[in-house]
């Protein structure tokens, strides 16, 4: 089974997020770059599938030079090889174009059976790029797969949560799925595997290798000016809450009679101060 995982490098949003001096992007001076957390679940699912059915796992990523670290992390987890589409312009490129470019590289890989990617990229909060990748590859997709029930050489059966229920679907392979967290438990890369990953082959591709004519877009589509949608401004909202915390007399939990008092105070605040009752 030939399995492709599309991964992205994102900035770590657990840390502080600040606006850059240009005002239309997030400051990247002191940030940590990580493998998009949702992509870890996709890589794990791919490796488990390979362990079951044999074959190989190829990670594909589009990004600047530092993006190689995300690919290496996937390789350290157990993927076999990588494709790095390297360009500095991708951060400002819309999902539409990225999906087309990534698809064109995946199409160069012979006999792909199964494509996986994270359900969302946490910096851009994009849920669409994976689904658009399926469209550009001409493959059916199932997004937000909570569980792979069965997979063999010709088909995939999986469960997906939907508003108001859940659904089990069957789809012929090749197909693409997008992976939420909690669908599996991504393995940690051991030190020896991190060392081994450095020697695994990564094919570096540049925009010169992309046949834009066939894609029906121009090379200018990469970058801000060519995108159908562009970010013109970023704000970091401040959390502005009332912070009225009712604690017990010892500055910890309310106890005994304090409980009823605290509840009465809260109800009164909700009614008279917040006016939400």
């Amino acid at each position, binding site marked *: 089974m030939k399995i492709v995982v599309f991964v992205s490098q994102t900035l770590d949003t657990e840390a502080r997020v600040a606006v850059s001096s240009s005002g239309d992007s997030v400051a990247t001076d002191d940030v940590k770059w990580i493998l998009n957390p949702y992509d870890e679940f996709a890589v794990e699912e791919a490796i488990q599938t390979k362990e079951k059915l044999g074959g190989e796992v190829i990670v594909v990523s589009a990004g600047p030079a530092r993006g190689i670290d995300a690919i290496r992390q996937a390789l350290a987890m157990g993927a076999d090889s990588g494709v790095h589409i390297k360009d500095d312009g991708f951060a400002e490129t*819309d999902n539409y174009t990225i999906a087309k470019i990534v698809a064109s590289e995946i199409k160069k890989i012979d006999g792909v059976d199964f494509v996986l990617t994270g359900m969302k990229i946490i*910096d851009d909060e994009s849920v669409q790029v994976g689904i658009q990748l399926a469209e550009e590859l001409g493959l059916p997709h199932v*997004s937000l797969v909570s569980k792979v029930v069965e997979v063999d050489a010709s088909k995939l059966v999986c469960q997906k949560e939907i508003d108001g229920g859940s*659904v*089990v679907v069957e789809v012929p392979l090749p197909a693409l799925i997008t992976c939420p967290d909690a669908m599996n438990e991504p393995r940690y890369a051991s030190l020896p595997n991190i060392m081994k990953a450095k020697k695994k082959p990564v094919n570096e591709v540049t925009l010169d290798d992309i046949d834009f004519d066939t894609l029906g877009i121009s090379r200018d589509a990469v970058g801000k000016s060519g995108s*159908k949608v562009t970010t013109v401004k970023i704000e970091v*909202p401040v959390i502005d809450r*009332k912070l009225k915390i009712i604690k017990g007399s010892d500055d*910890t939990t309310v106890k005994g009679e304090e409980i009823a008092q605290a509840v009465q105070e809260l109800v009164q605040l909700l009614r008279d101060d917040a006016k939400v*009752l």
Partner: protein
Amino acid sequence: MSNEIWVIADMKMDGSIRKVSFEALSEAKRSMQSKIGGPLCAVLMGSGVADKAEALGKYGAEKVYVVDNAHLKDFNPDGYVKALSELVAKHQPHIVLAGNTSFTEDYIPRVAARTGSGLAMEAIDMGLTDDNRLTVKRYSHSSKAISEIEFKAGNTMMATIRPNTYKEEESPVSPEVINEQVDISDADIKVKVVNLETKMSDRPELTEAERVVAGGRGLGSEENFKYIYDLADVLSAAAGATRAAVDAGYCPYDMQVGQTGKAVSPTLYFAVAISGAVQHFSGMGTSKVIVSINKDPETPIFAKSDYAICGDLFEVLPVLSEELKKALAE
């Protein structure tokens, strides 16, 4: 490009139209239609849905494009992608809006790719430039930032809207119904449903609810979630949960609020035994009033709350449910 604004009618499992579709129609009517000039239209896709056109007229839809096709029954994104893509290619609407739901998140991106449309998802604010290009504000970076997105001219502009962002407002007209034939065959349906389980709940749906009561890991068991449901029922609220609670099996996945789960913007959000991780806050940080109940005086959720009680939920919640019941009866 035509000068039509389209709103996709998103349907629930029971076949009723989601409130967010009316919110989108109302907002398009209020702040876009007069500038763009064309009719406000709705798109109604499904099986046996033709009788829903009137409901859309109530919120200002002057034209309703109807695709009534047996292949659009239940969960069937392939069929919807085909139907909507063909309609967009044929009529070239200026703007296409839809509620952001787990279903539209699944199929609208494909429609945008297929039709070469620009797309911004989960808008919390929208506007138009002087030359009538759409602008959208949306959360990014785990909701720690708000990005303002501007569309280019020359393509249909598509956006999905976070539910509960706009007010729905009636503006009744009798819509012109346009029946569209889209040829969908079995071969078009690649993703086949093997089993569909619907869970009907008497509580309001999470994303639509005015009030939400959510529980976290601190609940400790599925049984104890009764504390959450009791409080929710007193408040006529939807019930929500953190991933930790869902993972532990205390409650079903469709209750999950957060970066993976649903984004909610109720008037009142109760976070019970929830620590307030960035991935959870990302899904409820836009709630108007946040109340937390937590026994840890240092819990990070307190710094993100309007009101809080530091206390044990098992002691506080029953008293709170009673007091609220009284207050609401007054």
